[in-house]
């Protein structure tokens, strides 16, 4: 322990999954996440696990369904177009309340889009994505180290809530190399998987399903799922408040954009403009309360995203009209630079006087 290794985010995600006890991976190649399946294709057999390259993302997510239903810790990863293909299965997994971890190394869209980093799958990850009333717990790392930490936490969270957890990364997090330390986590108490299908020996049989033809029964099932999301919102919100105490203008950003914003904040503070940042780490559940509180103290919030404005809708819900919410975004694989962020903040500053 304590040893740091220099690896890409994709490899860190793979190794973190192994350290978290994940022994099964099912996936399909797509750029820019290929290092995850490549890494696990040799790493998993070393620890007695199993890697299968599926015939499609659709098949991969249902292999996850099968393995998760058998009670195993299981991972799949993909990138935006592939995550779209998995949405059907994610809906079924959510309905059947199966724990699993899904990694989206986001690239530009829509359609085939491009292969460079993007944050344009925020809505898909946080608002449901597939059909029906459900949510994944969504974690957004902004460094390779954090990606590793969050993947390890994700397996516990999935087991705790019997719910899929998505790691919402982007092409930078996936492909960038940084020093990473895999920290041993003390095991936490998790519910037993007495619902798993393992053979009906000395117990009534188990059934994993999502069909409820009786509307009253389906409504009860929907309400049960909803209670889990309410519990997540109560217990699992993670957010970084960066230099917010004395901030007169606030930036809201997550993932790769947040680390670029930190450089912008440094430059702005050297220029005498006190800027802070709120960085959601969980994007579902979203830190609405943090934004509610902070909007009492600042007049202007600049949301910066690699999209044309997705997280901004959640920021506005948190702010609820108490502050002006501005937006700056780059898309298509273009990334906002710190200079651009500095310029946007200076614009806001000028409008204040």
């Amino acid at each position, binding site marked *: 322990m304590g040893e740091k290794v220099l690896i890409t985010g994709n490899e860190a995600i793979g190794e973190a999954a192994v350290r978290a006890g994940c022994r099964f991976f099912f996936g399909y190649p797509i750029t820019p996440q290929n290092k995850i399946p490549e890494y696990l294709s040799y790493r998993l057999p070393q620890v007695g696990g199993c890697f299968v390259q599926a015939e499609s993302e659709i098949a991969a997510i249902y292999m996850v369904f099968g393995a998760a239903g*058998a*009670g195993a810790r*299981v991972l799949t990863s993909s990138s935006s177009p592939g995550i779209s293909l998995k949405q059907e299965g994610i809906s079924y997994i959510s309905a059947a309340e199966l724990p699993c971890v899904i990694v989206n190394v986001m690239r530009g869209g829509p359609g085939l889009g491009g292969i460079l980093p993007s944050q344009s799958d925020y809505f898909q990850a946080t608002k449901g994505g597939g059909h029906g009333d459900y949510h994944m717990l969504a974690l957004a790392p902004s460094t390779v180290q954090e990606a590793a930490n969050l993947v390890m936490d994700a397996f516990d969270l999935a087991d705790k809530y019997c719910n899929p957890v998505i790691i919402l990364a982007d092409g930078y997090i996936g492909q960038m190399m940084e020093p990473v330390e895999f920290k041993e986590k003390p095991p936490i108490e998790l519910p037993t998987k007495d619902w798993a299908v393992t*053979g*009906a*020996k000395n117990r009534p049989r188990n059934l994993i399903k999502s069909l409820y033809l009786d509307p009253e029964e389906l409504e009860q099932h929907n309400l049960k799922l909803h209670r889990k999301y309410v519990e997540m919102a109560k217990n699992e919100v993670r957010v970084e408040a960066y230099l917010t105490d004395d901030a007169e203008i606030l930036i809201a950003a997550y993932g790769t954009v947040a680390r670029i914003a930190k450089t912008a904040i440094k430059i702005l503070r050297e220029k005498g403009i006190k800027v802070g940042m709120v960085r959601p780490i969980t994007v579902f559940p979203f830190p609405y309360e943090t934004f509610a509180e902070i909007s009492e103290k600042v007049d202007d919030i600049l949301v910066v995203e690699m999209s044309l404005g997705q997280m901004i809708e959640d920021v506005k819900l948190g702010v609820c009209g108490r502050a002006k919410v501005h937006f700056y975004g780059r898309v298509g694989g273009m990334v906002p630079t710190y200079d651009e962020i500095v310029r946007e903040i200076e614009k806001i500053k000028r409008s204040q006087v």
Partner: protein
Amino acid sequence: MMKVVFERPKSMFPVPTHYCPGCGHGIVHRLLAEVIDEFGIRERVIGVAPVGCSVFLYNYINCDMYEAAHGRAPAIATGCKRVYPDLMLFTYQGDGDLASIGTAEIIHAANRGENITVLFLNNAIYGMTGGQMAPTTILGQRTTTCPLGRSPKREGYPIRIAEMLATLEGATYIARVAVHNPRAIIAAKKALKKAFEVQINGLGFSLVEFLSPCPTGWGISPAEATKWVEENMIPTFPVGEFKVPKSEKLVK
């Protein structure tokens, strides 16, 4: 003292089924339960039910089970089997499920040689949704979505799954049987038993295609439907074994 000469298989719940009179599903369910009982594997068998009329398979067979999305049962079975290679996995799929929306999943599960057993019920129609054209609808057959009868020019040809999968090296045992008369049913059970034995011996992928009557979907009486299987389905879908294990060390 009276001797019991006929009883319900132990793996079957003592409930009536929801199937229409003359439907083949009940027969295939029973064969499945009999085979599970005869191998004594109920406590280590896992089923995957499809979308379609037989989605409620789990209401009738008493073993651990998944309910799959349409066409995805072989992928789910793969995921479970990879976690527990010693469990016995079967999928139960209709023709819309397996031969249309789930073609990728069935072909690749067979090609990987997944050690699972597939029960494929072919009744040449979408039963649950009300009698639409299936990939296995035979030429000339009228359905609600080919009301003039299936024409190769408009709708293409019925797909022969057993023959197609038998071309794959990964597949170990592939057979087509029918369940329209007692003689056919006896042969069907024998094939299903072989399929499970392939899996029990770890020999790889096995599939049995059952030609099965759907009087409601076909718009004819149950008696006419059994005749229709004989006269119309079997000529299109010949019964027989299309692939057997190289070392035929199976039960008779």
